[in-house]
Every structure is written in structure tokens, then in C-alpha cells.
């Protein structure tokens, strides 16, 4: 589904150019639950932003279901994001002044859905993440775990092909983290949603099918390769 070839990424800071990602080559298939781990500053967030069509400024080729993403315009990226990816962020990134229902409805609105359809879909996904009946709450009055559930509900509302989660448990305690992880695992197993997450929590990473480790912008290990190597 996702094929990254020789991805290089530079950050410009004044006259300096930082080489953040070095020749990244990754293939991710439908239905995988992937964890990308690494130290802070290793470039894992940068990588996941590229995978999630958030960052279009990179070198190399990126084929998503045979679409040449590297050639797409900014507008095409918007609809691609809307229809294919769901995002879960470390700090939830919810509209704090809008209700839970409005937050979850946001991607559906931009997809051009009708209000009636949106209403049913919103209740559906809220039930799925265990927040049935929370439609009219404000995110600012909810706990971190609940907010993250809202954000997951928002991410899956458009039936995306894959989920991108940047440190989804980073702001949560161990118990809540586990709840969120269970939710992810459930989505992956029952719904077949591909999930790619960045984490530096080893406990979270070990629950994933596949772990990709990045150090200083280079892929140093990939458990799938390991399996493959082992099989060979």
C-alpha cells in the first residue's frame, strides 16, 4: 500500500541545512500495525508526517496505492488526506470550543457529506471508541484518555485506509495508554485498519506487529525484515 523509496528530507535553518532523513526505504502493506520508534530528534515524526501526506516537501519517491504522491499539489494532498488518512496526535489537537460531535464531524464536513449522514456516522464512531452519548460535551471538560478517544473517533470517521498516530499515548498515564492501545489493536484486528504509530514507549511498541527503529534519520532495524531474514 505504502512504498517509500530513497526518501531524503532536509530542514533549512538559516544558512544551515539539516539532513533529517537519509535514504528511507519502507514498504507497508494493508492491515499492518506498525510502530516507529527512536529517540527524540531521530526524525520519526518527520517520517510519519511524510507518510501521512502532511509534508509534501521531500526528495525521493512515494507511491501510495500506485499514486505518485511526490508529484501531487497541495490541493490534491488535502483531498488525499481527507479520504485516506486519519490522524491521532500526542496532544489530541481537538477544537476545544467545539463539541465532541462537531470535532468528530469535521473530516466528514470537508468530505462534503450531508448533515444527516454525518450525525449517524458520528454516533457510530463515538460508540466504537466507547464514548456513546458524549456528543454534546466539550473536549476541555474531558480527561486526557477521553480526549484521545474523541480524536481517534475523528480519525476513523471517514473510513480511512490507514491511521497515523504521533505519540498517541505520550500524554497519558500507563493505564489509559493501555486502553488506547487496546482500542488501536481492536481497530486493527476487527476493522482491518492499517495503523502506523510513532512512539518511544517500549511497552507500546512491543504490542505492535512490526517495529521500525530509526536513529539519526536512518532505519536501523525493521522487525519485518528481521522476520523475512529469519525466514530466509
Amino acid at each position, binding site marked *: 500500500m505504502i512504498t517509500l523509496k530513497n526518501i531524503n528530507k532536509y530542514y533549512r535553518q538559516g544558512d544551515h541545512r539539516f539532513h533529517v532523513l537519509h535514504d528511507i526505504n519502507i514498504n507497508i502493506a494493508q492491515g499492518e500495525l506498525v510502530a516507529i520508534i527512536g529517540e527524540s530528534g531521530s526524525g520519526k515524526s518527520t517520517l510519519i508526517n511524510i507518510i501521512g501526506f502532511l509534508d509534501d516537501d521531500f526528495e525521493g519517491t512515494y507511491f501510495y496505492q500506485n499514486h505518485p504522491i511526490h508529484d501531487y499539489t497541495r490541493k490534491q494532498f*488535502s483531498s488525499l488526506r481527507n479520504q485516506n488518512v486519519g490522524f491521532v496526535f500526542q496532544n489530541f489537537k481537538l477544537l476545544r470550543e467545539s463539541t465532541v460531535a462537531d470535532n468528530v464531524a469535521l473530516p466528514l464536513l470537508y468530505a462534503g457529506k450531508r448533515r444527516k449522514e454525518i450525525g449517524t456516522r458520528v454516533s457510530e464512531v463515538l460508540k466504537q471508541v466507547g464514548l456513546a452519548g458524549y456528543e454534546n460535551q466539550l473536549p476541555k471538560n474531558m480527561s486526557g484518555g477521553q480526549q484521545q478517544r474523541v480524536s481517534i473517533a475523528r480519525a476513523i470517521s471517514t473510513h480511512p485506509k490507514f491511521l497515523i498516530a504521533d505519540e498517541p499515548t505520550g500524554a497519558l498515564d500507563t493505564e489509559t495508554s493501555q486502553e488506547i492501545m487496546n482500542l488501536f489493536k481492536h481497530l486493527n484486528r476487527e476493522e482491518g485498519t492499517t495503523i502506523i504509530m510513532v512512539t518511544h514507549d517500549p511497552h507500546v511498541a512491543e504490542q505492535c506487529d512490526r517495529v521500525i527503529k530509526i536513529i539519526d534519520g536512518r532505519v536501523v532495524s525493521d522487525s519485518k525484515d528481521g522476520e523475512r531474514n529469519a525466514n530466509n
Partner: protein
Amino acid sequence: MQIIELFKSAIQSLKANKKRSFLTIIGIMIGIAAVIAILGIGDGITKTMYDKFGNNAKQGQQTTEIAYNPDNVNSTVNGFTQEQLTDINTQFGGEIKNAEIEQESDNISTHADIGDTTKNVTLSLLKKPTHSVSLVAGKNFTKNDLEIGEANALMSEKVAKRQYGSAQNAIGTTVTANNVTYTVTGVYKSQEQFTDDGNQNSYGVDLLLPKSVYYQGDSAKEGNTLKLTFSQGTNASAISRKVAKYLKKNSPAATQGSYQYLDMEKALKQFSSQMSIITTFISFIAAISLFIAGIGVMNMMYISVSERTQEIGIRLAVGATPFNIMMQFLVEAVILTLTGGLLGFLCGAGLAHLLAPLLSSAIGGGGIHIHAHISLDAFLLAFGTSAAVGLVFGILPARQAANKNLIDILR
């Protein structure tokens, strides 16, 4: 994204910052209100003038008058006779709907012999008895009096007192006007020359005489004022001018006086064009406040964009296109200015209606009452201008919002 959702979310965002939105709206409101009030009063003045002095175009037909002024004030020559009426009808029959010699009955200025002295007086003629005057001495006209055609007259208290010392003394004296001698049978309380709504008061005159007696014999068919009626759409002014010119050449009375057509329409056109120059100029000055308000809108939108960076990021991340984001902020700006514009229109209209009467009393009455006139054009102007202000001053902040770098926001 559906348009209705765009408006809903824009209103929601504006509500989230009530005070700021309110202040921005007030700015626009003041600007629009100033322009509308000035235009309303300006239009009102022009319209009042037309209503008062125009060719009565609003009644579906137009009327003009040609007046004959004899050179010798005491002359009894009449400018218009039946003969001339036929003449005019044959000459201009196709263009004029109707021509008639007007027998004025209200507020006629003429000479009259009151007792021994000849005086300039104003008088009104009555066909029916009136209760609009209150008698201080003698008795009022009865229906019978007027039908029989008794040469009786009513005199105003003011004239009676000046001439005879008291109202009672005037009863039984005589007044001679238009070669008829009348006996004063009553004296009435003097009235103002103008009514409260600014029209001439036909009872605010020196004498009231029976119409059937005043216009007798030849004078019943002759007069010094010709009233022409035209169909709607004809050029009444031009034809009336032609008629006046024709009369000057061909009428036997032209040697002893002059025919005059006072072209009010032409004067009014000049007046209204001058008026519109003045209103435009003042509106232009008022529009400066609108410009400043526009800058206020821009300022607010810039602040809003930078405050809501996170929101923009979230929206972009879940699939909003840059165009969606731009529209959202643009719609917010336009909603602000339109609300201000419509409120401003209402305030301006109210202000104009409030100021116009003050203005007419400042002019000193003179029988002219100015009513503000708010036209549909003014409404469209307010609507259009405020929308345009929103677009013009909203576009830059909106574009800034749309072009924000998603990665920078989300980092």
C-alpha cells in the same frame, strides 16, 4: 464542504469572540450609517422639492401652468379667453391632453377697495359654506347665500381691526374686488398663512368671497392662468414653453402684458444635480470612516488568524483545502461587515428621519417640510459596500490563513 456549514462555523467562531466581533461591527455600522443618513437627507430634500414644485408627475399625468401678467396692474385685460383656448387646442391638440383657464379660488393676490382705500389683499373663494373659520362678529355664509349669489364677504379680524378699529365696526361696510362690491357680513378670526404641514392655508387670507359672484359673466370664462394637462411621459416642459411662445406671438393680450411659463422642472433638475454633487461629496467624507472601519476588520481578522493557528492546522490535517480555509475566514469577515452594514443602514435611515424635521425647522419652516427619503438604491449601496469592505479587507488575512504551513503548525 457545504456552504451552509461554512456559514454555521463562521458564526460559531464569531460568537466565540463576542466582544471583538461586536466592536468591529460597530465600526462598520458607524461608517454605513453616516453615508446612508446623508444620502437619505439629500434625496429627501430633492424629492420634497419635486413633490412641491414639480409637474405632479406622480398622479399619472403632468400639469403645468402658464401665467399672464398684465403690464398695468390695474388692467382688467385677461390673458386667456375662450378664443385663445380654442386656438391652443387646435395648435397643440395632439400634444396637450387638456387646456383650461384656471379660475383660482385659493389665496388669490389682488387689489380690493376696502372702504375708501385700495389695498393689496389676499382672498379665497368659497363654493360651499365652511366651518374652518370661527366668526368673531356677524354671521357665516349659509348654503343659501352662496347659491343665490349674494355679494357678501367675510373679512379677517386683522384687516377689520386695522381698517375699522374693531370687528364689530366692519360689519356692513363694503369691499370692492374685481368690479363687484360686496357687503361684509361677518368677521372671522385670522389664521396662519401656512398650515402645519407646510401647505398654504386657504383660510389664512384677508377676505373670503363667494366664488359664483367673483367669477361672473365674461370673467367666468376668462382668466390669467392657463392650466395644461399632459399625459405621463410627454415632455411637458418643452411643450409648455412652446405654448407660451405661441401666445406671445399670437395673442391680442400680448401687447398689454406678458405670458410666462415658469419651468420648475428645469430649475429642479439643476437643483437636484447640485444637491447630488453636495451629497456625494459629503458621503465621500463619511466613507473615510468606512475605510477606517475596514482596516479594523482587517486588523481583527489578522489577530484571529494568528490566534487560531492550531485550528487552521487541525482543519488542514483532516482534509480542508487551503481554499476551504480561505473561504472560512473570508465568510467571517463578510458576515461581520454585512451585519454592520445592515445595522448601519437601519441606524442611518433612522437618523435621517430624525434629522430631516430638525433640518426643515432650522431652515425656518417657510412651508417646506423635508422628509428623509431612503431609496432602494441606498439599501443596495449599504449592502454592496459592506460586503465589498468585508471582501477587500478580509482577503489578505484569509489568504495568510490558507497559506500557513501545516508542518510548522503541527510541530
